[in-house]
C-alpha cells in the first residue's frame, strides 16, 4: 500500500466543476447506471462514473491525464438515465473545461478565456488589433471594384495572422506535450503516432458519434461543422500563403473552383452549426447541460461562418456602407477564434484525438470492442 495514492482534495477543482455545468456533481452515489448505459464506456474505463467520483473528491492530478474525459462524446445518455439527477455528462463537460484551463499555455490565458465574465475580452482585443491595422496609416481609396484589401492591406493582415497562427501552434504544442505527459502518468501508454492514422479515419467516419444514443442530428451536425471548418482552414491557409508569395490575388473570382469549394465549405459549416444549435435548444437534457463554454464556442464558429458569408455577399453587391464594417466584425471573430483555440472548447480537437490515439490499442483487444461495450459495468460493478 506504500505506493497507494495519497489523496488531498483540490477544493478549487470542486468549486470550478460545480460552478460550471457540474452543479449536481455531489449527487452522484456511484450506482454506475451512467457507465452501463454509455456505449463508449468500457470495463477498463468506466466513465463517466469514475470521473465523477474523482471530481467529487477533487482529484485534479488524476483527472488531467485521464483519457476517459475525452473519450466521452457528450451524447447525454447518462444524464438522461441518472437516477440521482447528478448530470454526469454535464459534470464531464465541466471537468473537460477545468482540464483545458490547467493544460493551457500560458496559464493566465487559460484562466482568463475559461471565465464567463471575460467572454468579451478576446473579441474586444481582436477588434482593437484589427482597428489599428485598418486606421493607422489610412489608405482608403474609392477605386472600384471595392475590395477588402482597401481597408486591411494584405501586407499588414497576412503577417498578423501568420504571427497569431504561430503563437497558437506554439500554445497548442505545449498544451499537447503537457497532456501527453499527463496521459503517460495516468497509465494511458498506447503508442500515439502510429495510432493517429486509424484515429483520424475513425474521426472522419464519426463512428463514436454513431454509437452514441444521441441521434443523427448531432452526428451530422458535428460532421458538417468539422468538414466545413477543415475545408475553410485549408483554403484560408492556401490563399494566405498563395497571396503572400504573389501566386494568387484576392478576391478570387466567384466561379473559380477554389472559391466554389470555399463557399461550399462555409455552407456546410453554417448548416452544421445550425443543426448543433437546434439540437442543444430542442433537447431539454442537452439544453440544461450546456455550459457557457459550449454556447461560446458554438456561437463563435457559427458567427464566423455567417459574417464570412455576409461579407462576401456585400462585397459582391459592392455595398460601401456595410461591406467593410461586416468584414471588420468577421475578421475580429476569426482572430478571436484563433486566439481562443488553445483555451476554449475548440481545443477538444487536439486533446480528444490524442486521448483516442493513446487508448486506441485498448479498443482493439478482443472483448473490448467499442460497439457492444454497452452494459459492461452491469456485471463488473
Amino acid at each position, binding site marked *: *500500500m506504500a505506493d*497507494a*495514492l*495519497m*489523496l*488531498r*482534495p483540490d*477544493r478549487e477543482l*470542486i*468549486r470550478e466543476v*460545480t460552478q460550471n455545468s457540474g452543479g449536481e456533481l*455531489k*449527487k452522484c*452515489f*456511484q450506482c454506475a447506471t451512467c457507465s452501463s448505459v454509455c456505449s463508449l464506456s468500457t470495463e477498463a474505463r*468506466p466513465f463517466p*462514473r*469514475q470521473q465523477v*467520483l*474523482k471530481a*467529487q*473528491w477533487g*482529484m485534479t492530478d*488524476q483527472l488531467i491525464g485521464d483519457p476517459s474525459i475525452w473519450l466521452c462524446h457528450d451524447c447525454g445518455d447518462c444524464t438522461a438515465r441518472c437516477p*440521482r439527477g447528478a448530470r454526469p455528462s454535464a459534470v464531464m463537460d465541466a471537468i473537460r473545461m477545468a482540464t483545458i484551463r490547467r493544460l493551457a499555455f500560458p496559464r493566465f490565458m487559460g484562466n482568463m478565456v475559461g471565465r464567463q465574465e471575460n467572454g468579451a475580452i478576446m473579441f474586444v482585443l481582436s477588434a482593437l488589433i484589427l482597428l489599428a491595422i485598418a486606421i493607422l496609416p489610412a489608405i482608403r481609396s474609392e477605386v472600384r471594384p471595392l475590395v477588402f484589401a482597401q481597408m486591411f492591406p494584405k501586407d499588414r493582415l497576412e503577417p498578423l495572422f501568420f504571427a497569431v497562427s504561430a503563437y497558437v501552434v506554439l500554445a497548442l504544442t505545449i498544451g499537447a506535450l503537457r497532456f501527453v505527459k499527463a496521459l503517460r502518468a495516468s497509465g494511458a501508454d498506447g503508442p500515439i503516432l502510429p495510432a493517429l492514422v486509424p484515429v483520424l479515419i475513425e474521426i472522419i467516419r464519426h463512428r463514436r458519434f454513431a454509437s452514441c444514443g444521441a441521434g443523427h442530428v448531432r452526428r451530422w451536425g458535428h460532421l458538417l461543422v468539422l468538414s466545413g471548418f477543415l475545408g475553410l482552414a485549408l483554403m484560408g491557409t492556401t490563399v494566405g500563403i498563395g497571396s503572400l508569395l504573389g501566386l494568387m490575388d484576392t478576391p478570387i473570382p466567384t466561379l473559380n473552383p477554389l472559391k466554389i469549394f470555399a463557399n461550399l465549405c462555409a455552407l456546410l459549416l453554417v448548416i452544421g452549426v445550425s443543426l448543433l444549435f437546434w439540437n442543444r435548444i430542442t433537447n431539454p437534457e442537452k439544453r440544461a447541460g450546456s455550459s457557457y463554454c459550449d454556447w461560446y464556442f458554438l456561437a463563435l464558429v457559427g458567427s464566423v461562418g455567417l459574417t464570412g458569408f455576409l461579407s462576401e455577399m456585400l462585397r459582391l453587391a459592392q455595398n460601401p456602407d456595410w461591406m467593410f464594417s461586416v468584414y471588420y466584425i468577421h475578421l475580429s471573430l476569426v482572430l478571436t477564434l484563433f486566439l481562443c483555440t488553445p483555451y476554449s472548447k475548440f481545443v477538444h480537437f487536439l486533446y480528444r484525438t490524442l486521448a483516442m490515439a493513446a487508448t486506441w490499442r485498448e479498443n482493439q483487444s478482443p472483448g473490448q470492442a467499442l460497439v457492444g461495450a454497452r452494459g459492461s459495468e452491469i456485471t463488473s*460493478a
Partner: protein
Amino acid sequence: MDKRLGVYICGGCSIGESLDVDRLAKVAATGHKVPVCRTHACLCGEEGVAQIRGDLTGGAVNAIVIAACSPRAKMECFNFGSTQIVERVNLREHVAWSHPPKDEDSQALAEDYLRMGMAKAEKMEPPEPLSETISRAILVVGGGVTGINAALEGAKAGHDVLLVEKEPQLGGFLGGLKKVFPTHPPYTEAEDNQLAEKISAVSAHPRIKVFCSTQVTRTEGQPGMFDVTLRNGNDAETHRVGAIVMATGWKPYDRARLTLPGCDLPDVVTNVEFERMAAAGSVARPSDGQPVKSALFVQCAGSRDPKHLSYCSSVCCMSTLKEAEWLRAQNPEVEIFIIYRDMVTPGTYESYYQSLQNHALNFLMKGSVTSLERDANGKVVVSVDGSLIGSPIRVAVDMVVLATGMVPNSADNDAIRTLRDARRTVERNESETQRAEAEKIVTLLQDRDGTEILNLSYRQGPDLPVLQNGFPNSHFVCFPYETQRTGIYAAGAVRSPMDSAMAAEDACGAMLKAIQSVQLATNGQAVHPRAGDLSYPNFALQRCTMCKRCTVECPFGALDEDEKGTPKFNPYRCRRCGICMGACPERIISFKNYSVDMIASMVKAIEVPDEFEDKPRILIFACENDAYPALDQAGMMRATYDASVRVIPLRCLGSMNIVWIADALSRGIDGVMLMGCKFGDDYQCHFIRGSELANRRLENVKDTLERLQLESGRIELVQLGIDEGDRVPRIIDDFVARVRELGPNPYKGF
C-alpha cells in the same frame, strides 16, 4: 360424555356435482348409525346453518361433523361457540377440487374422510377453560427509549406498569444524546432529543412505578401470574405481573475485537465514543486536544462480517451522517471522509443522506479500509482498497471514527444453562472424566456468569433463548416481539438492531402483545399462533416414566420438573402445539379435542383395500399451519393429485407421535408422508422446531422399520411453505409413484 353425532354434508361449491352425496350420507347414517345426518345444497347458507343450530338447541345432537369446505374457510358461519365439538371434513379443497368428478377413487376418498371425521368427533370432548386469577400488571425491563415508550403505552391502555432500570436514572443510551435522526420534513437536519419529556411523563404517570438501580433477581410462575423479585441494593421485593416486556437495549460491539490494523491508535474513536464527546460539548483530537480539521468515518467496522457481527446494525450510517453534521457545525471548513460498503438510509433518511452528500467538503466513497497508521505529523493515514477509484488510495486525517454496530443486551440462555449444569457436575464430582469435561466447559463459558437478565425459574434455563446473532426474537417474520417464553415479549434493540424512532414504535407493538397475552390468559385462551384456543394438554402422570422428553422438547419451556423428574405443567406458558404429546413415549399427554387416541382412530377409520395395484393407500400428516393451507391452495388451483392419499391435519408436525406411523403400517397402509414447515436456521415452524423434532423422531422410526423388513422409503418428510401449493401435486404424485415401485405393504391384509 354421551355422544349424539350430527353429520351435515354440503353439496355446494361443486361437491354435489363431483361426489355422490347420498352415498356419503349412507356411510354416516347406515354405516356409522349417527342419530342425525343431513345433506344440504348450500350448508353455509342461512337455512343450512339454522338446521344445525336447531338440532343443537333441540338436543338431537351434541357433537357435529361438517363435511363441506376446508376448516380454514367459513369459520364464522360454522362457529357454534368455543366449547361446542365441531369436526370439519374437507370435501371441497381436498376432494372435489383436486380429484376427478364422478370417480370411484374420489368417492372412496370422500367416504374415508367422512369416516375419519366421525371417528375423531366420537372421541372429542369439549375443552374446560383455565380460570385462574390473572394479574393485569405488566413489567417492563429496561428504562431506555423502548422501555419508556412501552411503559407509557401500557399505562395509557389502563394497565399498571412496573418499569425497571438497572442504572440510577432512566434514559438508556438515547438519554446520553443531544441529537437524534430527523423525523420531520424536510428530513435534512438532526433534531433535538426529546426523551427528557417522555421521562417526565413516565415519572408523573400514576399507573407507572419506576424502579431505578434495580435488577430482576428472579422470575417465577407463568403468564398472568409471574412473581418477579426486584432487588435494589439489599432491598428485594416481589411483585406479581401478568406479562413482561424485555427492552434491555444494546451495547456497542467491542472495539477490542476489531482486527483492522491501527484501530487502537489514540486518534481513532468509535461512534459511541464520538457521541459521548459530542454530548460533553466539543470534539477534539483525543491525542492532543487539537481541533479536528479532517475526519474519516469507517462504516461497517465489524458489521456485516461473519467474523464479527454478520448483520447490519441499521443505524451506523445514519449516526455517521449525524456526527458529520455535528462536526460541520463545529467547523464549517472541516473535511469529512466516509468510506462505506453501502449507505443504508431507508425511507425518509435518504433525504438526510442526500443533503449531507451534497456538501462540497463531505467526501463519500465505497471501499474498504485496510489499515490505519500514524504518520510523522501525528495524522492518521487511512488506506482504502477496493474503492471505485480503481486503485488503492490513502487519506491523512486528524481523526478516525469507527462506525461499530449494535450487540443485543440479551442473555445467552443456552450458554448460562450449560455453565450451571457444568458447575453442578464439578460439585458432584462423580467421575474423573465427567469432571474434567465439565471444568473445560466452566472455563469456556465463565464469562456468562452474571449475565442473566430475567432469572427465570424455568427448567430450561434462566433467560430467553436466543436464536441467530444473540437476538431473542423467535419468529420475526410472522410474529414480531415473540420470544420462546410465552408472555414475555422482546422490544427495541434487544429484538433487532434499530434506531430510537423505530424503538418507540417497537415498544408500542410489544406492549400491545403483552396486553393481548394478559387478556387471553384472563379468558383461559392460548396466545398465537393458536390464539383463542381453550384446550390444553392433560398429563396422566400416574403412568409417567420421568423420561423428561416433554420437558426438554417443549420449545416454550412450559414444563418444569420436580426433584424426581416428574413434569410440572404450567398451562399458561403453553402454546398448545402438542409437541409434548408427540414426544411422549407413554402417550400420557392428551388434549380434550386432540390426542394420540383420536388420531389413531382416524387412521383406523381408513378403509384399506386388499388390492394394491390401483388402490394403494398413502397417509399424509400435514401441519395445519403451512402444509395444510398449501394443500388447500392446490385445490383452489384445481390441481389434481393422486386420490390414494388421506390427509390428517396436525397442530404441528412436532405433535406427531410415532405410534401413528406404526398403526398405519400395521393396518396395511403403504406409505406415510409428513408435511411440515421448513426447519433449520431460517425455520418457518410456528412452534420453533416442531418439524425438526418430527424429522429426528422419523430417523429413529426408520431404523425400526428396517428391522421389521419394511423399506424406510415408505416414510418421507417434506418441508413445505405456505405459498407452495403449486408444488403439492408433484410432491404427492412422486411419492405415490415411489411407493408403487416398492410394492404393497407386506402387512396388508393381516
